[in-house]
């Protein structure tokens, strides 16, 4: 029997048993857990009926931990032990963080990554996030009445590899089996798409507490195909709070605020922002710790002014994403708003203006992501779906590459490649007898490695000692369905295989490893771009030189005036291109000159041969 009953992959082995799986939106400001029950996805509430869990964790000296609403209320009382917006610290080093976040916590650097000092000891953002996930996990298990087989955890689409790894680790630490990391806008699209059975191209504009994503998807016959994503993983509703906070501080002319006062005013700024989504004016009232009362009104027009630059900042990624798809605004069939921050009227206006249509908001923007994740979790767990067969095809948000000579990033997997994806590239040795090569894996769109995110460094040893350029090292990048990268390298010229597989770890300190590797550093990286330019330059100069010398000898017999003019102009163009150090232009100009001069070279050769035949010796031409 066992041999005959081969289960369809993805199907439950015991079809009558519903496997419990949840979707979790681990948000900057709020988190939520949802599950599919009786065929439809619902957000699970706590015992008080609250559906959202504030992503705030308070540590006490006795080891007790408070998470959620209570912790959020305690922010101003115990600012340094009450941690909020920890998502913005995930997979980040201290140097990555903008000023407002640095002043909000007692931060320190451990193993190159940022950690937070609390009364209960030092905590990593991963550990803090795990506390939030544990609460959601037990809420789900209580609510669903059983142990979970797994969870889909959502991440901002624009999260890089380090941030994804950190999120997955937090889930594991919370005792969750991660079925998949799912991009937040994709999750929202699932919630919308399956609900409405829509077809067409949709844009999901997702502005959360600390991250911004724009995602363009095509929905067609049950397939959600992400065409492009873009965003800013350090831009969100929080930044609007800080803008209001700065305004309050400036208006009140207060200086040297205590940490408690800072947190108090930040909370006031947040509620003023939220209030302004409903009303034209918000009252801000607070009593500072020294007894000084604060009372002011903030008008929506002023708020819009204060935050106009932030709204505008979201539009550049929108344009980039659209350009990557090759589509225009007219091709978009619908725009979905996700994330609490999209309640702001200024955001809705800006989105409506850009896409020339009113955005869809009929699913609660705070819940859409968790609902979509629950639907995906249900499918991954192997439960039959009421909505039939459907498939998610997501993409990698940022290009992946290797550092090459001169500190440049060589792109190996371009952004917006459909997952899973693998790409290989060959490299070679730079020096004779070189036996090791160090690899630096980076992520980002910028040319210079310094402007990209460093993911991992590793060294390939045991390369057979050969002449420079003889070894063939193939580096393969594989990105799985979670958007996580693994890298391997093989030397293949001699059949001797040296290989290493690296999972880039967010916990690795770049500087540390860099120091470790320094002694063995072999300048092995070959910069394809610089090298290409160098080769073009050398070749072009050789070409120019050979034609010049040929022209000097004698040209009248094999070149008429018009041809001479054409040749001179082609040479001038090549010299011009050389001055600009533009490899492509040099290549094209050299190709043109080469082809133009080829027939003349042939004539010159004929000339030479005929002269030889006329009785002169070859040595006369030396």
């Amino acid at each position, binding site marked *: 029997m066992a041999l005959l009953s081969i289960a369809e992959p993805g199907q439950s082995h015991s079809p009558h048993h519903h496997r419990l799986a949840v979707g979790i939106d681990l948000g900057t400001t709020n988190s939520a857990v949802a599950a599919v029950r009786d065929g439809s996805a619902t957000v699970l509430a706590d015992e008080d009926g609250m559906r959202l869990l504030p992503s705030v964790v308070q540590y006490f000296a006795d080891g007790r931990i408070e998470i959620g609403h209570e912790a959020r209320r305690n922010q101003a009382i115990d600012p340094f032990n009450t941690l909020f917006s920890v998502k913005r610290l995930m997979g980040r080093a201290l140097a990555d963080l903008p000023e407002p976040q640095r002043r909000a916590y007692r931060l320190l650097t451990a193993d190159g990554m940022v950690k937070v000092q609390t009364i209960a000891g030092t905590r990593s953002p991963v550990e803090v996030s795990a506390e939030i996930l544990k609460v959601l996990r037990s809420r789900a298990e209580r609510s669903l009445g059983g142990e979970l087989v797994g969870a889909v955890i959502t991440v901002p689409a624009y999260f890089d590899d380090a941030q994804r790894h950190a999120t997955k680790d937090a889930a594991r630490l919370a005792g969750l089996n991660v*079925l998949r990391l799912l991009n937040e806008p994709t999750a929202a699209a699932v919630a919308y798409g399956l609900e409405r059975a829509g077809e067409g191209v949709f844009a999901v504009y997702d502005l959360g507490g600390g991250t911004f994503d724009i995602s363009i998807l095509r929905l067609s016959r049950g397939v959600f195909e992400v065409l492009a994503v873009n965003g800013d993983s350090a831009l969100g509703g929080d930044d609007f709070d800080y803008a209001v906070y700065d305004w309050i501080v400036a208006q009140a002319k207060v200086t040297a605020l205590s940490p408690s006062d800072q947190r108090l005013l930040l909370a006031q700024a947040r509620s003023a922002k939220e209030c302004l989504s409903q009303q034209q004016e918000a009252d801000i009232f607070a009593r500072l710790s020294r007894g000084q009362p604060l009372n002011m009104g903030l008008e929506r027009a002023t708020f819009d002014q204060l935050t106009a630059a932030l709204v505008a900042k979201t539009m550049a990624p929108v344009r980039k994403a659209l350009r990557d798809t090759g589509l225009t605004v007219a091709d978009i069939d619908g725009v979905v708003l996700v994330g609490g921050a999209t309640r702001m009227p200024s955001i809705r206006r800006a989105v409506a203006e850009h896409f020339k249509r009113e955005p869809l908001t009929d699913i609660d923007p705070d819940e859409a992501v968790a609902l979509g994740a629950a639907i995906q979790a249900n499918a*991954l767990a192997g439960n039959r779906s009421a909505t039939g067969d459907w498939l998610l095809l997501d993409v990698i948000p940022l290009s992946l590459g290797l550092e090459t000579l001169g500190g440049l990033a060589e792109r190996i997997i371009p952004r917006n*490649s459909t997952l899973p*994806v*693998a790409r290989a590239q060959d490299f070679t040795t730079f020096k004779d007898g070189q036996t090791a090569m160090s690899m630096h894996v980076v992520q980002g769109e910028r040319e210079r490695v310094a402007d990209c995110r460093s993911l991992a460094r590793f060294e390939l040893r045991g390369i057979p000692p050969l002449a420079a350029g003889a070894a063939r090292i193939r580096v393969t990048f594989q990105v799985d369905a979670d958007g996580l990268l693994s890298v391997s390298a093989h030397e293949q010229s001699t059949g001797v295989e040296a290989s290493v597989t690296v999972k880039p770890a967010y916990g690795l300190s770049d500087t540390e490893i860099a120091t470790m590797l320094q002694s063995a550093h072999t300048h092995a990286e070959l910069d394809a771009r610089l090298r290409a330019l160098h080769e073009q330059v050398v070749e072009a100069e050789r070409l120019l030189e050979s034609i010049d010398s040929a022209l000097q000898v004698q040209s009248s017999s094999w070149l008429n005036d018009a041809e001479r003019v054409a040749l001179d102009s082609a040479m001038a163009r090549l010299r011009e291109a050389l001055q600009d150090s533009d490899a492509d232009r040099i290549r094209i100009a050299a190709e043109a000159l080469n082809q133009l001069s080829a027939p003349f070279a042939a004539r010159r050769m004929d000339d030479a041969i005929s002269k030889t035949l006329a009785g002169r010796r070859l040595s006369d031409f030396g």
Partner: protein
Amino acid sequence: MNGRAPQRRNRFLRRGGRDPNRLARHGKKVMPQSYFALFNLEPRFALPGEQLDAAYRQLAAQVHPDRYANAAPAEQRLALSLATSANEAYRTLKRPLLRAQHLLGLRGVDVLDGGARISQEFLLEQMDWRETLSDARAARNATGLQQLGELVRRRTADLLQQLAAQLDADGDNCAAARTVQQLMYVDKLLFDIDEAHALLEA
């Protein structure tokens, strides 16, 4: 089983399954199999987008790692590499330039092998366009970039039409290889124009 055809998947597994990393490791240099065959498509340049989309979706629905979230690790690894191959095949066939290169590769013609001669006029035009691009980039001239982009896109459309005739009707692989080479110039230029656009907005 649910009516899905397991034989189809099995056949595919047998074909691609010997070395799951074959495609990934060897990248584009080695042509291990026909991407057309992978999708059960005729090896022709003319390929209606919907036909390819439908074939890809059918395959992706069977091999995507999401379908194996509960499967044994070995099966998951296999799904990963099969889905990776399907994506690579789709990407290749989706883009006319890569599709033509792949088709020529299947006919034993390596476009990158050189030999094909590109006309002087074409190269001169390329140089002009490159200069226009670098001028527009330096002057941060978005309209200039836009106009150049449109011009180059029109040229691309013409070249693709020419290529379709050469590959499908005439079966003239040498002429097609020349056109492909020209398209590579044009394609790189379009990419650089887009990058210049992005830079303007940054």
